[in-house]
């Protein structure tokens, strides 16, 4: 027990140092361990620009709509790069040059299955897929899906790459505790079938971006860990949030949100450092439990 308390104290003090190293920025962390019940947060209720972590919420909205039998994962949707801005209703497009995924852009004019779009949105962070899915499901419907699952701290306002909305501060925001609640709703199958819960985790598990959670794990743990996560990066923001599955124990949930004008490598380094500290604290709490 003493070791667990020591490592939790270390997590708190080191996280403070890492936050101080971000200068003008901020660090938000939230953790929940299903094995020990250990829960800890730093700036847990502070709002951050969501960046691409909002795609987890869009995924939940999509599966909520599937649960309501609005469509299925096999339903086909016209891939069209034309959206109406949240601010003024004027059309805008997702710039292919700024999108991490080419495949959905290559399908413009054709149709893709909902399941394929969901995968591209999460696994390769396709902005076009995210906007197509949110446009179809609806912002209000997505917000209602989160509210129905008791998820606070995730504020879905619009699709991504909506520059006019961005310029006026009309953005998607999340708190560390909100993202953890969202991931717990997925893992717990809160108002979801077991099949939907599994399908969402499988998609998150196939994440192609490294982020900071996985690189921060000790080498021996990284080799056996399976992490279902979503990263988020824009000019001054780097986030990573996910479920960390380790052999022989239930998972822990972690959200690390970083905002800073420092270079991207500084932010990514902070993500990895926090991930390592969180792992140590969670592992010790698990042993004590």
């Amino acid at each position, binding site marked *: 027990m003493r070791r667990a308390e020591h490592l939790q104290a270390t997590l708190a003090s080191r996280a403070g140092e890492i936050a101080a190293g971000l200068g003008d920025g901020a660090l938000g962390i939230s953790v929940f361990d299903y094995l020990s019940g250990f829960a800890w947060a730093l700036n847990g209720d502070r709002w951050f620009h969501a960046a691409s972590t909002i795609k987890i919420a869009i995924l939940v909205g999509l599966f909520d709509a599937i649960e309501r039998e609005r*469509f299925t994962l096999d*339903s*086909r*949707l*016209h*891939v*069209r*790069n*034309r959206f109406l801005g949240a601010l003024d209703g*004027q*059309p805008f*497009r997702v710039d292919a040059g700024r999108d991490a995924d080419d495949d959905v852009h290559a399908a*413009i*004019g*054709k*149709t893709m299955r*909902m399941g394929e779009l969901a995968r591209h949105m999460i696994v390769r962070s396709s902005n076009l897929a995210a906007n197509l899915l949110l446009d179809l499901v609806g912002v209000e419907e997505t917000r209602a899906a989160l509210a129905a699952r008791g998820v606070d701290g995730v504020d879905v306002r619009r699709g991504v790459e909506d520059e006019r909305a961005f310029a006026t501060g009309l953005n998607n925001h999340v708190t560390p505790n909100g993202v953890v609640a969202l991931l717990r709703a997925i893992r717990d199958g809160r108002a979801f079938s077991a099949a939907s819960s599994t399908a969402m985790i499988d998609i998150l598990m196939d994440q192609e971006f490294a982020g900071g959670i996985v690189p921060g794990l000790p080498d021996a743990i990284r080799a056996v860990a399976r992490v279902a996560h979503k990263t988020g990066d824009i000019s001054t923001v780097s986030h990573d949030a996910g479920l960390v599955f380790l052999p022989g124990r239930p998972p822990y949930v972690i959200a690390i949100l970083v905002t800073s004008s420092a270079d991207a490598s500084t932010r990514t380094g902070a993500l990895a450092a926090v991930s390592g500290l969180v792992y140590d604290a969670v592992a010790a709490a698990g042993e004590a439990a």
Partner: protein
Amino acid sequence: MLTLPVVDALALDGSVSRLLKPDALMQTRNGDSHRLPRFFYQVDSWHDALETQLTPHFGLWELMDVDLHEAAPLRLFPRYVPCAVTALAAALELFRLEVGSTVRIAANGGYRSPTHRGSRSGSPHCWGTAANIYAIGGEPLDTEEQIGRYAAVARRLLPFAWVRPYGHDLGEADDHLHLDLGYLTSIPNGISEHHHGGPAHE
């Protein structure tokens, strides 16, 4: 010669007929009314759609691809496409020969039913006489210059067609070239308009 069966949609099962709305009047934004098509080609499978060539460069499948915004019964086979789709294909073929490159029709951009969620009032797409062209060759049509250039070709070549101007408002297009032949219906030879039951072939 097209070998697809022609059906009188008034004689189709109610679950399909109520979605196709044969012979019903559809009102445009201007308040004009037009009677929806009654005679349709029956397409029994996607394979049939792929194999049915309407003109040398246009297959039927290109003009009947829809997404989940079409009601589920109309996405199941057999599916139905208004007979006037042949006139659209003929017009598109002229356009294709003029531009000398593949003309790509968008999903939901050929025939879609009047109950399709993307069908605005009086859309000629519900007659199977309109096409949304999203790319020509490898060139996407998503700028004023590109849409305007090909719109000029269409207007010169097909003076009887309506080509939407570039723009962001209703009645305009900014990510495709829309051309249509208006509210044209077609009744192939050998089909009686008095027939009210079973296949329309006599």
